[in-house]
């Protein structure tokens, strides 16, 4: 009788294990990638290593990690794994249908990229194919303050889940040789201080009488002055940068320079203030000289945190990896080049708790490549976003051959 009870208990236990294992096996976002060289973007690459993903998050990485039974093992022997790439400056989804610039309104911090986001354009999938899994996309540079950006994954069914951060990330633009640009931004900061003061008075007082009028634009700017949001400033010329740094000294806000063509000429000034530089799309721009192409290495050496960007559609989103390869060609060390499209942009956008490196607990945004990440011939074989297989090249190649 007792042994029968034990027997049933055993059966139950086995059944339980079977159910648990099956639920793992069935869940799409749990698997192990085995046998690749893993570049975590933090520290030296791990040879012949495994990364274990459970429920869309990275569970563990290493050579001899325990893989639960029944979890799907994907053999990626000889391949290279890098974190999903991050572009800190894109106009993907916003640029379409001419929605990037509200030209008649030079100061428009209230404008929000989300409200202009075209999610159905094919560029998103193209970005995935290039291994780009997270982007900071926002309004253009036609205005002095063009609006707020959005930080979003390039893949996923649920928009709310895709968004890492919406609003803030205020985009500004200083274009050379226009004396009015910086004063008009400075004026906005001054107005913001007054606005803060008025609201402060109202809220610290007895709140009698009408509250100050709400101003959506200044509300965004208040968050900037409180240090909750960063300013992303489109800027090319070194003298403009010097001036803008003085503005930062005066008002004290978190800042990254965008495009940063001549940042290398004042690298020390920038490093001193801990301002990140989002650097020029390197592929092509006609007129980009070798000096500027070498600028990224100069900035890196001076201790400036740099991130490559495509400025999509200026360079197509999918070529972000090539931008980093090129900066490596022009003197940036290999590990720094990889960081410039992974952890650095994540840190600049303050999303490094979620993405940017292959570390325990982070989102399973992983790229499997068929060769060294920086080489021209190397292709993206697989892309995982939140542990979901978003792209599998072998499948696509097959369908292309069928069309033939």
């Amino acid at each position, binding site marked *: 009788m007792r042994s029968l009870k034990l027997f049933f208990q055993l059966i139950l236990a086995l059944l339980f294990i079977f159910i648990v294992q099956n639920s793992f096996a069935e869940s799409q976002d749990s698997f192990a990638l085995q046998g690749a060289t893993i570049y975590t973007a933090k520290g030296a690459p791990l040879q012949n290593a495994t990364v274990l993903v459970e429920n869309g998050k990275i569970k563990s990485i290493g050579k001899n990690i325990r893989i639960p039974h029944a979890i799907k093992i994907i053999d990626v022997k000889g391949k290279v794994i890098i974190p999903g790439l991050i572009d800190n400056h894109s106009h993907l989804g916003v640029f379409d249908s*001419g929605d990037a610039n509200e030209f008649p309104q030079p100061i428009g911090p209230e404008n929000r990229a989300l409200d202009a986001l075209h999610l159905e354009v*094919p560029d998103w999938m193209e970005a995935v194919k290039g291994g780009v899994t997270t982007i900071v996309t926002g309004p253009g540079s036609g205005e002095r303050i063009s609006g707020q950006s959005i930080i979003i994954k390039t893949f996923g069914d649920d928009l709310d889940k895709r968004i890492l951060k919406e609003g803030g990330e205020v985009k500004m633009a200083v274009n050379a040789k226009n004396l009015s640009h910086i004063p008009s931004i400075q004026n906005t900061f001054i107005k913001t201080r007054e606005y803060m003061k008025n609201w402060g008075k109202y809220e610290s007082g007895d709140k009698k009488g009408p509250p100050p009028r709400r101003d959506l634009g200044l509300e965004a700017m208040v968050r900037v002055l409180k240090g909750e949001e960063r300013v992303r400033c489109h800027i090319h010329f070194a003298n403009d940068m010097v001036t803008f740094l003085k503005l930062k000294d005066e008002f004290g806000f978190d800042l990254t320079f965008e495009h940063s063509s001549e940042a290398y000429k004042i690298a020390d000034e920038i490093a001193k203030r801990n301002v990140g530089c989002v650097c020029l799309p390197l*592929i*092509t721009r*006609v007129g*980009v*000289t*070798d000096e500027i192409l070498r600028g990224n290495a100069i900035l890196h050496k001076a201790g400036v945190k740099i991130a490559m960007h495509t400025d999509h*559609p*200026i*360079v*197509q989103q999918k*070529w972000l990896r*090539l931008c980093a*390869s*090129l900066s*490596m*060609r022009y003197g940036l060390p290999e590990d720094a080049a990889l960081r410039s499209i992974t952890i650095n942009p994540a840190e600049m956008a303050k999303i490094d708790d979620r993405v940017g490196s292959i570390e325990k607990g982070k989102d399973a945004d992983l790229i499997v490549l068929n060769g060294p990440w*920086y*080489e*021209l*011939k*190397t*292709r993206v074989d697989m892309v995982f976003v939140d542990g979901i297989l978003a792209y599998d090249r072998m499948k696509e190649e097959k369908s*292309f051959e069928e069309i033939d």
Partner: protein
Amino acid sequence: MIIKIRLERNSDLNFLAKSMKLMAVWLATILVLILTYAQSKSIIAIKGGTILTMTGKTIQNGIILIQGERIKAVGENVKIPRGAKVVNASGKYIMPGIVDAMTYYGIRPFDLNDTSHPVTPQNRIIQAFYPFGDFMRGKGGISPDREILSGGVTTVYIAPGDRQVIGGQGAVVKTYGKSFDGLILREPAAIDITIGDPPKMAFEENKSPVTRMSIAALLRKNLIKAQEYDRSLSSYANKSEEEKKKVEKPKRDLNLEALIRLLHKDIPARVEADLVDDIRTAIRISDEFDFNLIIDSGIGAYKIKNLLAKKKIPVILGPISHPFITGDEVNSAPELMSLMDERNAAQLSKEGVKIAIASFGMGSGRLGRAIQGKLLLLEAGLATGFGLPDEEALKAVTIYPAEILGVDDRVGSIEPDKDADIIILDGPPLKIKTWVEMVFMNGKLVYTKGD
């Protein structure tokens, strides 16, 4: 013989003559030696390394002899003449200078498009070509452009912009040389035509062309005019001197003269066409008027690769790394973007279509589609990731463009008697970290990395 006979007649002078004869032999020998030495001194020998000839086999540890402006010999067992200047290239890669089959190199943006009229075949881009460095600066003469040379680019096709239906006549030029005329390899080299959106959007409102129908009609009308002009010219030429006096000589017409070159197949038409339908239109018109056709850009070419292969129509492809096309530029931007496929080059090449990969650089004609010429070799490297074999990728920036441009008797490969345009690289080409270390043009070292 003459000396001998004389000597026999006058034996008194025998001794003197004998010594003179000896001296003459010596003098001749010395002269020959000096001449040989002087000649060999002007010979450059590139020794060692992997020689990618582009037409023959790849040669390991070979030798290239350059004499004057030309390649004298290439091979494994070439003897280096005494006194030759030896360039040690062991461990390096050696290949012919890069040929960029589509550029606006040396053309100032405002010179690109003559938007006064959609059809201007008489315009010659060579007249806008400016190889003298910065305006009102420099030492004089042709200015070496270190940026373009750093990419190993030695020959380029220069074209008028693409905003007109017939923009004019292009030219093939070298990127560096002694004199302006010395740069020109072929001029005129082709008639540049655009079928597609750019000419529709370049002219004032209510001025044709604003549709593809009108573009095609304009082409046909002008080609018919050229046929008629051609007939009237030859009928006048065939008349007797007596008859010629009676009739008026046909007036010269530079526009039609240019188009006659096309109809006589002296030069080909280069038609920029991207949509499959535009490429078909180009083929249709070339069939109707029987001229040689080259497709430029050809984003959708892979879709009709069989037809292109059958008709032996070469395609000069634009860069894949920078396919930025916006609605401001062309109506059919979304269609083009979805048509674009990085495997275009590989697909065409596999089918047997002759392809060149070009930069389309240095101009405003299509800013969005251009890369800098110095990165062209890297662009070819990218194509290898999408299925183009390495060798084909290298040929697509050397011998194939040379053949398409009709200058393969001079450039595009390392073969005896060709121009000594040779580049030495510090590693295998098509790799991201490989750099051009030396560039020889017309037998002269014109660029050294780091100088």
